[in-house]
C-alpha cells in the first residue's frame, strides 16, 4: 500500500505546491490529527478508566455521573481546568515556569511519531525508530527539572530532583532490555522489529528464550518507573512532598503534566507491544479470508490487535497502581542499580550467547518458554480465584453502579 500523506496533500492542493512545502504541511497535518483525534481522547479516557478501575479495586464508585458510566468525565475536567485561573507564584521564575509543561508535553507527544499502529499506519517509520523514542522521551526529564526548579518551592525542587534521578537511573535497564530485542531483530526501525516477529505467540520476542521473557518484565518495570507511576511515584508522593513538581501548578498547566502521564501509559504499552508482543501482526488468512485482498479490513484488524495489546499493559499499570504500595527512595535506587541493571545485562549476554549457538532461534526453547509462561499465568489466576473464594469478600457495591 503506497498511499502516503504526501499524495493526499497533492490531491487536496492541486497546482504548484513545492514538494518540501507539501512535506511541511503534511507533517503539521499529521501532528494535528494525531494529537486531536487520537492522543487527547485516549489520554482523557485513560484518566477516566484509571479512576474507575482504581475505585473498583478499593470498593469505591469513582466518577460515574458525566455521560454513560462517567465516560465523558475527562471532557468535564478539561472544560473546568481551562476556565480556571492560571496562577503563577510571585517568587517563581516566570519564564521557566510557563515553559515547563510544554517541554514535558512535547517530550511525551514526540513518542507518537514512531508508534506503529498498523502495517502502513505510522506517522514516520524512521530507521532509527526505537533510538529516537528513547532520545525524545529524555526531554521529559528536562521539563520536570524545569518545573521543579522554577516553582521556587522546596517540595517542587525535591520532587523534580527525585524524578530526574529516577528517570536517568531506570533508563539503563530499560535501554539494555530494548537492546536484547535489537539483537534479535537486527534493526532499530519500529516496523522492522514488528516484521521480524509473527502473529502467533511463539513468534513473539517475549517467548524467544527465557532471557527475553525476563527482559520484557524488566522493560515494563523500568518503563513504569520512568513514567513516574506508582509504586515508583516518589516524585509526587503526596504524603511527603504535597504534589512534587506540580505543587505550584494550577489550571490547564497542571493538567498538561497529567495529560502526559496518562497518555504515557499507552506509549509504554505500545512500545512493549512493538518490541516484545508482535505489534500489529495478524495471520495472513483468517477463516479463509485472505487479508491481502481486503486492505481496509486488514488495516482495521491490525489497528485493533495493536491497540488491545498496548492497552492491556496500560490496564496492568492501573492494576499495579491499585495494588502495590509506594517504595522508599533508597529502595527505589537499590532496586534499579543492585538488581535490575545486573539482571538486564545477564539477559543481554544470555541472549547473545543463545544467538551464537542458534542463530535462527531454537523452536524447542521457544515452546518451553511459552509453556512455562502459560503455567505461571495459570498459577497466578488460580491464586486469585483461591483468594477470592476464601476471603469471601462482601461487595457492598455492584460492579457497575
Amino acid at each position, binding site marked *: 500500500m503506497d498511499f502516503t500523506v504526501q499524495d493526499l496533500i497533492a490531491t487536496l492542493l492541486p497546482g504548484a505546491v*513545492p514538494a518540501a512545502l507539501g512535506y511541511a504541511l503534511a507533517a503539521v497535518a499529521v501532528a494535528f490529527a494525531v494529537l486531536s483525534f487520537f492522543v487527547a481522547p485516549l489520554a482523557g479516557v485513560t484518566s477516566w478508566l484509571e479512576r474507575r478501575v482504581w475505585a473498583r479495586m478499593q470498593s469505591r464508585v469513582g466518577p460515574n455521573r458525566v455521560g454513560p458510566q462517567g465516560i465523558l468525565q475527562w471532557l468535564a475536567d478539561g472544560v473546568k481546568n481551562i476556565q480556571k485561573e492560571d496562577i503563577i507564584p510571585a517568587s517563581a521564575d516566570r519564564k*521557566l515556569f510557563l515553559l515547563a509543561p510544554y517541554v514535558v508535553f512535547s517530550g511525551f507527544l514526540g513518542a507518537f511519531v514512531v508508534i506503529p499502529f498498523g502495517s502502513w499506519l505510522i506517522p514516520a517509520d524512521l530507521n532509527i525508530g526505537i533510538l529516537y523514542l528513547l532520545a525524545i522521551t529524555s526531554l521529559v526529564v528536562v521539563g520536570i527539572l524545569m518545573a521543579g526548579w522554577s516553582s521556587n518551592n522546596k517540595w517542587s525542587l525535591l520532587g523534580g530532583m527525585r524524578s530526574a534521578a529516577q528517570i536517568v537511573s531506570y533508563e539503563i535497564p530499560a535501554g539494555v532490555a530494548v537492546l536484547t530485542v535489537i539483537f534479535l531483530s537486527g534493526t532499530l526501525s519500529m516496523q522492522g522489529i514488528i516484521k521480524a516477529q509473527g502473529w502467533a505467540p511463539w513468534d513473539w520476542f517475549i517467548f524467544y528464550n527465557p532471557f527475553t521473557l525476563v527482559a520484557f518484565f524488566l522493560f515494563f518495570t523500568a518503563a513504569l518507573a520512568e513514567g513516574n507511576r506508582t509504586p515508583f511515584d516518589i516524585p509526587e508522593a503526596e504524603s511527603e512532598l504535597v504534589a512534587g513538581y506540580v505543587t505550584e501548578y494550577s489550571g490547564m498547566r497542571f493538567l498538561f503534566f497529567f495529560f502526559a502521564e496518562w497518555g504515557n501509559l499507552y506509549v509504554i504499552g505500545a512500545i512493549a507491544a512493538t518490541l516484545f508482543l508482535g505489534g500489529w501482526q495478524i495471520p495472513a488468512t483468517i477463516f479463509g479470508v485472505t487479508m491481502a485482498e481486503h486492505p481496509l479490513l486488514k488495516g482495521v484488524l491490525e489497528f485493533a490487535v495493536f491497540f488491545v495489546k498496548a492497552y492491556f499493559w496500560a490496564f496492568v499499570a492501573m492494576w499495579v497502581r491499585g495494588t502495590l504500595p509506594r517504595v522508599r527512595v533508597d529502595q527505589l535506587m537499590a532496586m534499579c542499580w543492585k538488581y535490575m541493571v545486573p539482571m538486564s545485562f545477564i539477559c543481554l549476554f544470555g541472549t547473545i550467547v543463545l544467538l551464537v549457538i542458534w542463530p535462527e532461534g531454537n523452536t524447542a526453547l521457544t515452546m518451553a518458554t511459552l509453556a512455562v509462561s502459560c503455567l505461571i499465568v495459570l498459577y497466578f489466576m488460580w491464586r486469585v480465584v483461591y483468594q477470592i473464594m476464601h476471603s469471601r469478600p462482601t461487595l457492598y457495591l455492584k460492579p457497575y453502579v
Partner: protein
Amino acid sequence: MEISIDVLIFYLVSLVVVGSACIVAFSRNIVHSAFSLLGTFGGVAGLYVFLGADFVAAVQVLIYVGGILVLILFAVMLTHRISDIDITNRTVGRIPALVAVAVFLGILVYAIGETDWVRVKEVAFAPTTAVIGNLFLGDYLLPFQIAAVVLLVALIGAITLSRKEIKE
C-alpha cells in the same frame, strides 16, 4: 537566490542554536544558562538531521539532553545560594576574554575562507546505523576500545572520589 523551505528551516534551526548559545553565554542567571543548553543541543541534533546523520542526531539528543544536560542541571541546582548572581555569574576578565575571542574568531574566519567547500547536489538520505556499527567494529576498533576504557576509568574514578571511607 530562491529561498526554498529547507533553507528556511535550516536558518531557523541555526537561529535556535546561536540564540540559545548566546543566552548560555550572556544570561545573568546560571540556571537559565543551563536550561538554554536544551536549545543548543536540540538544534545541533537538527543540524545533524540536515546532514543526513540520523543515528548521530538521535544519539546527540539521547546523550546530551538526556544525560549531560540533566547532570549539569543537578550540579547547578544543588549548589548553595544558586540564585545569587554575585557568586555565580560575575563578569570577570573582560579584556583577556575579548582578546581570546577575537583571536579565535580570526582563526575561524580564516579557516572558513581557506576551506575548499564542495556542494553536494543531492544528499542521499541512507540509513547510517549499520555502516557506523561496521566501522566501529572493523576499521576503528582500536579507537572504539580506547574510548570504552577511558569511560571505564572515568567511572571508577568518580566512584572512588564520591564514596565514603568506612573506618573500622
